[in-house]
């Protein structure tokens, strides 16, 4: 009996491992974050870090319903601020970690992706992330409106930029609005959309749990090493703070 109880306690303590950091991350930033986590774990091999990847809106909704995340890396500044206002995180922890760039991308090479091509319907359907939940989708919606792309051009709505990319990559959609970081090394055709055409995508994060382990990793995100990885993935870092 006694060994059994011991085993049970061991399992429980492993389950309630305080050293495990659970991060909710917007789909566009999953790749750079994985690299940052790998780098961080070389310095702190005893800390376990797990990622949950989804759209910013979905993750914010999960956090409002008590999802046990320690850190939330959103693709906008709206959600982290809302959560802070609702008392769901450490209010002083909201910080911008990256500025994202929106691109229109197609796996087909030597396409001349530009406003005229988009308006003419020569490439269709065009995928974008759900504007209601995904900041990159919202930015794409702004671009479509700004360019006066007619309603006759079919659009396909993805859950987040990850699925938007998947729709184009599989060939099911002709092109997709995605984050520059997702496709900068993917070949194909790419139109880096002028930043004046959409409201800036300021990606902010919020720390949800006050613990030294979480703070340690969060600070690493803003260290020179962390920033180098972020820049290397095609983001800009704002030097405020």
């Amino acid at each position, binding site marked *: 009996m006694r060994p059994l109880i011991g085993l049970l306690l061991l399992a429980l303590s492993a389950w309630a491992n305080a050293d495990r950091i659970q991060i909710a991350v917007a789909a566009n930033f999953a790749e750079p974050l994985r690299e940052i986590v790998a780098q961080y774990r070389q310095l702190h091999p005893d800390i376990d870090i797990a990622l949950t990847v989804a759209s910013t*809106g979905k993750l914010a909704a999960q956090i409002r319903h008590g999802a046990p995340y320690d850190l939330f890396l959103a693709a906008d500044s709206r959600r982290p601020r809302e959560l802070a206002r609702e008392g769901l995180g450490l209010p002083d922890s909201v910080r911008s970690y990256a500025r994202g760039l929106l691109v229109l991308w197609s796996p087909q090479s030597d396409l001349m992706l530009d406003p005229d091509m988009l308006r003419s319907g020569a490439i269709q*359907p065009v995928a974008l992330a759900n504007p209601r*939940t995904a900041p990159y989708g919202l930015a794409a919606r702004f671009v479509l409106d700004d360019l006066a792309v007619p309603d006759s051009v079919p659009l396909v709505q993805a859950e987040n930029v990850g699925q938007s990319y998947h729709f184009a990559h*599989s060939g099911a959609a002709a092109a997709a609005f995605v984050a520059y970081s997702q496709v900068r090394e993917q070949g194909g055709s790419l139109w880096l959309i002028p930043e004046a055409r959409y409201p800036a995508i300021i990606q902010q994060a919020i720390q949800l749990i006050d613990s030294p382990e979480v703070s340690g990793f969060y600070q690493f995100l803003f260290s020179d090493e962390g920033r180098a990885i972020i820049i290397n993935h095609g983001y800009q870092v704002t030097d405020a703070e």
Partner: protein
Amino acid sequence: MLSNGDWLALWVSIQLAFVTVLLLLLICTPLAWVMARRRWPGQALLEATLALPLVLPPSVLGFYLLLLLGPNGPGGWIGDLAGLRSLAFSFPGLVIGSVVYSLPFVLQPLKNAIANLEEDQLAMAAVCGAGPLDRFCSLVFPQARLGYLSAAMLGFAHTLGEFGVVLMIGGSLPGETRVASVALYEHVEAGDYANAHRLALVLLVASLLMLWGLFRWQRQRTSGSWL
């Protein structure tokens, strides 16, 4: 009570379920027949393949279906014939996905019904010179109609409740591929709980009424003499 967009989504769901069930009844009748009344090599493998949607996660089906329906797969040239770029993100594409996904739910009740047919009557009718169509209309269908009704209701309800596959191959186009379950999911994701509550309630009540009707009908039929 519901917004126009949600009514439209509900209407797409109903159309999808209706077309899917109609196609499945046509496809599954001969399938159920050869499965229930013949023995042939490779049968177990075919049965296992057709039962796969019962156990496979919808994400697996959705992943493959997107490749098959897209312009680089067979969906590309079939879509071409219909003037579409591909079958992905289109209503016909959803129908194909739903037919695959709901097939076991229609096939199983039909198989059981056909396996329980009265052998003697069928043989006698054949001896008396009734053709296959005549035998089907005057003997098989009346005897198996409970099976047909169960198959149709289950297929309809299951397609109405479909979510994962549509999420992966639909693209959420209003009036085309945004079905009620996906519209609800998007309300929840966007934090629009008022609309989410309304649509969820409508779906819940509609599904309950449908199943209640089916079970009531079954009870009446099985207790009364309907043969």
